[in-house]
């Protein structure tokens, strides 16, 4: 075998990707828990951990650019590096949205929720699962799992539409709820976007393994 040092650098890149993925998973998990429990401390932790994710994104970007400049990657190596560059943007956005949810959680921490949280935690669980599974599919390079993630995006989208309608009705019936309902509206929008970013990650995993990239979520096919 030759090109030991390049392979070593690719392994280091992979380790950093796994580390970033771990942080992102933790952020989304904690942001949902904080929302459910109205836990300010946990929400603050999520908010603060976003800097670490951003810092890792910067480091990975730099490594990828140096690898492209210095190692002339081709075929699978080139796909691995481009996939890493694409995926970190989605991971960083997911962590941003988790921080956004945490920020709104802090704002609503002293208020009684205008509705019992049933569908929102359900949607959050689905979105979280999509993220975890998309990252799993990346780590294991499992395209069946990646395709599965893409097809589950519709469930998140359906719940999004359902919750938005429900929130509109609550606001119509009681204008005093507008402020909090709007915050919830943002939260579900963030969750919906998290599902989209998980889908993007899964699509890049399919690209990394097969060499062809497409939009795999059902509605956009």
């Amino acid at each position, binding site marked *: 075998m*030759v*090109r030991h040092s390049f392979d070593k650098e690719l392994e280091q890149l992979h380790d950093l990707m796994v580390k970033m993925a771990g942080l992102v998973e933790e952020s989304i998990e904690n942001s949902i828990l904080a929302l459910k429990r109205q836990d300010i401390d946990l929400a603050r932790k999520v908010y603060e951990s976003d800097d670490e994710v951003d810092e890792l994104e910067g480091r990975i970007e730099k490594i990828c650019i140096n690898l492209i*400049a*210095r190692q002339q990657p081709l075929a699978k190596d080139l796909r691995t590096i481009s996939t890493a560059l694409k995926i970190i943007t989605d991971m960083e956005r997911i962590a941003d949205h988790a921080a956004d949810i945490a920020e709104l959680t802090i704002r609503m921490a002293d208020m009684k929720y205008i509705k019992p949280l049933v569908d929102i935690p359900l949607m959050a669980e689905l979105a979280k699962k999509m993220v975890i599974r998309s990252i799993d599919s990346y780590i294991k390079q499992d395209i069946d799992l990646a395709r599965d993630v893409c097809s589950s995006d519709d469930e998140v989208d359906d719940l999004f539409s359902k919750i938005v309608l429900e929130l509109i009705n609550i606001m119509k019936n009681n204008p005093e709820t507008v402020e909090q309902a709007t915050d919830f509206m943002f939260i579900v929008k963030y969750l919906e976007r998290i599902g989209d970013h998980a889908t993007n990650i899964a699509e890049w995993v399919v690209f990394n393994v097969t060499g062809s990239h497409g939009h795999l979520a059902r509605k956009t096919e």
Partner: protein
Amino acid sequence: MTNDYRITTNNLNLFYGDLQALKNVSINISSNQVTAFIGPSGCGKSTFLKTLNRMNDLIANVKITGDVYFDGLNVYKEYDIVELRKNVGMVFQKPNPFPMSIYDNIAYGPRIHGIKSKSRLDDIVEKSLRNSALWDEVKDRLKQNALGLSGGQQQRLCIARVLAVEPEVVLMDEPTSALDPISTLKIEDLIEDLKKNYTIIIVTHNMQQAARISDSTAFFLHGEIVESGTTNHLFSNPQDKRTEDYITGRFG
């Protein structure tokens, strides 16, 4: 001044008769790193490499001004040339094994330096061949003629021959330009391993090779260093437009 670096040059100028081949070349070279010199043909990179172990002394009408320091000693004024060439070994473009056995090729240098003990020479031969990643391929035919080896093997033998006299620095002048891609990558892996124990300076026409294997790079043009720095920086964000043009293939 020179203690932090293994090799330092100050305002080095070299003339072949009236032709000035190097102009005020000043550079510091760190220990246990791979430093690459890149640049178009005739830019002075090989000439500069040869000034570091005084190989240019052999050429008529060469005049050198300025200083080269190796471990703080002035190479042209304070260093014994035999000692210098032992400490600063060199590998050339074309593999040039001596027409003798693999074993004798490696043992040649140590013998010249006075080592006669068979067991000591055996150890040196094995260690040098292991360090040049050739041992497993030749251990059963050490007595065979070295000219029977493939080009890539011959070049690794030449590297082993240099290592046998335990140098501090290894100069390599286009060491892979006569080799196929896989032999080239083997030598590149070897260079990566060698830098743990040696300081490597390599001249290469192959920019991609410099990018792959070096820690620092200097870009030569018309006998001058246009830009030098970390390889990461020079290949992703060069400061001089001429460097940018050269490494992106827009030169001239």
